[in-house]
């Protein structure tokens, strides 16, 4: 029995069961269509989203009649005209975009050394510690973390209590732009590190040893060799952090306290507070357009990085 166990692992038996089940669903192995069949659920999910987008496009072209609270039965560009004429729209788009760019830059700056040490350290203990520290925030969730910052940075928060001990007047640390960006950077850091780590792992250690033996000190090795070779990872991490920050809702809502709304907050207000679905939908499409153009610009200038996956990685 023991010999049977060692030469026929339990995982193989598990796979036998799976294969049998698979054969029931797809007799004769399924043939050439199987890969496409397996792809179907994912395509359906994404497809539903695309259909939703069509509905949003439709709503964005119907204007709300404020006397009857009914939407027009004809298509008009009024919502877009309103969006482009009100300075409010420009303000929140500009605030979101600038915020996303700052958050991306700061996150990459902080994530790079973190990922580098995590990948390169010879101490297994340090690597584990860095990994756990990275994943712990994921278990907590964005909203809870934002409330945590309220407790720490509030007027009666820990920081201000500590400042009071040394006789400093309470500082207003919350409900301003820097507080939102601070919260976003803290939220994005794990994403940045996780996207960068594989790119750094892909750089052989001998490459850095070679740069050293050829006369480079660590700063020059970093700028001439490591950073250029980590470029695909930097682009991949940058695009992910940028798009997530640009469309973020919770941090501006909680740490901005209503005074620092991003586009997503404005959309929420239109849908659920003023019930102007049409205007909300037009803002949604504008946000998608701004995000797509920004990412498109990055791809055009820097290439697609790790997001190009198999093709053209070199």
């Amino acid at each position, binding site marked *: 029995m023991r010999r049977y166990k060692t030469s026929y692992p339990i995982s193989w038996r598990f796979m036998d069961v799976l294969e049998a089940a698979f054969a029931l669903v797809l007799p004769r192995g399924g043939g050439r269509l199987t890969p496409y069949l397996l792809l179907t659920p994912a395509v359906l999910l994404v497809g539903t989203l695309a259909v939703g987008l069509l509905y949003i496009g439709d709503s964005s072209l119907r204007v709300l009649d404020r006397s009857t609270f009914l939407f027009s039965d004809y298509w008009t560009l009024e919502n877009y005209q309103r969006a482009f004429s009100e300075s409010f729209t420009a303000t929140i788009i500009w605030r979101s975009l600038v915020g996303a760019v700052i958050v991306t830059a700061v996150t990459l700056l902080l994530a790079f050394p973190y990922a580098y040490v995590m990948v390169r350290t010879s101490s297994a203990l340090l690597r584990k510690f860095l990994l756990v520290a990275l994943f712990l925030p994921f278990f907590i969730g964005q909203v809870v973390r934002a409330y945590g910052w309220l407790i720490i940075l509030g007027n009666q928060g820990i920081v201000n209590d500590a400042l009071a001990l040394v006789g400093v007047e309470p500082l207003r640390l919350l409900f301003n732009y820097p507080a939102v960006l601070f919260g976003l950077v803290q939220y994005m850091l794990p994403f940045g590190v996780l996207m960068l780590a594989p790119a750094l792992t892909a750089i052989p250690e*001998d*490459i850095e040893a070679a740069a050293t033996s050829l*006369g480079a000190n660590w700063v020059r090795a970093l700028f001439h060799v490591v950073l250029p070779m980590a470029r695909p990872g930097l682009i991949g991490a940058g695009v992910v952090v940028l798009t997530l920050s640009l469309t973020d809702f919770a941090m501006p809502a909680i740490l901005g306290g209503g005074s620092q709304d991003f586009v997503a907050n404005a959309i929420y207000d239109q849908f659920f507070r003023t019930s102007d679905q049409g205007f909300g939908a037009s803002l949604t499409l504008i946000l998608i357009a701004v995000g797509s153009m920004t990412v498109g610009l990055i791809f055009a200038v820097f290439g697609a990085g790790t997001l190009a996956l198999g093709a053209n990685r070199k």
Partner: protein
Amino acid sequence: MTEIQAAAVSAINVEMTFGTFKAVKDASFELQNGKFLTILGPSGSGKTTLLRLIAGFLTPSSGEILINGRSVRAVAANKRSIGMVFQKLALFPHMTAAENVAFPLKMRRFDARTIPDRVAQYLKLVRLDGFENRRIHELSGGQQQRVAIARALVFEPDLLLLDEPLAALDRKLREEMQLEFRRIQKELGVTTINVTHDQREALVVSDQVIVMNDGEIQQNAAPTQMYRMPSNPFVANFIGVTNDLSGILTRVTSADATARFGNVELMGVHGGAVALEDGTPIKGAIRAEQIRIASAEQSMAGLDADFRGTVLDAIFEGERHVYEVEVPELGGESLKIIHHDRNDQSALEPGALVHIGWKNRDLQIFPAKQ
């Protein structure tokens, strides 16, 4: 007045310990200026660690490494005048061939105006003129090797280190590159230390060979001496195909030794450095290519030892045959014999009765334990 020139590289009682593991034990050697040294050993023998100590990627736990007579303990790797070719080459994939070669010049702050000429000169040296603007992945394995060599030599280092760069190449290309290394090394006269587990490469390219095992230097000698007079059974077995015979020493003089193997007494040579006593167990070593073989009807002249045997196995390797022959007189031990058949005689088949023999000077006798 004669000036004593310091050796290009000296290691003095160098030791390297990782935790409780001693990777290099009490290694000492000297390498003269302009010479080509190969450190040969199986994987895990400490040869790469020794190379990394010289390169400055590691600092010895104890002992000193001198380059041109000066200790380099306090000199960082990027301040040493050492060019290194890495096992996986470690070329920069985001740069062209020419940029790779220019990199050390830029890092070592050469005058920007002189860099293009010098890069061209070294690409020509490694026969890569015309490939300047190729990216690394657009070059073949052999061409990548050449870029790595040019990059390691372009700043005219005092010392060139080669960390098994040829290990991954197929045999034909590897042999071609071995000769290429030798040509370039001779042309520039740069002192070179090569690390390999390929004993053939060590013999082909080197002026001096060090064999390492378990972190210890086993022998340090010129290739021909290493081949003819291995200092212990490990070296004898590592270089070439060698037959081991166990026996008991019966008589020993300053020049030769006689020992009983199976039913026979055989005479052989010993290094002389080790005291051998009558009656002690010994190891005899004889190289496969130093045993002559012929079919039972033929006669062989000029041999000191001559036995009858039966062919157990015959392998055809193109330019040579490898036979395994059972010799009852030697206590039933079978011997490997490499036979270069210049006269195109018909090959011996398994089961054939043969006689084999060798000259006394080709049988090496070592103490059984060291």
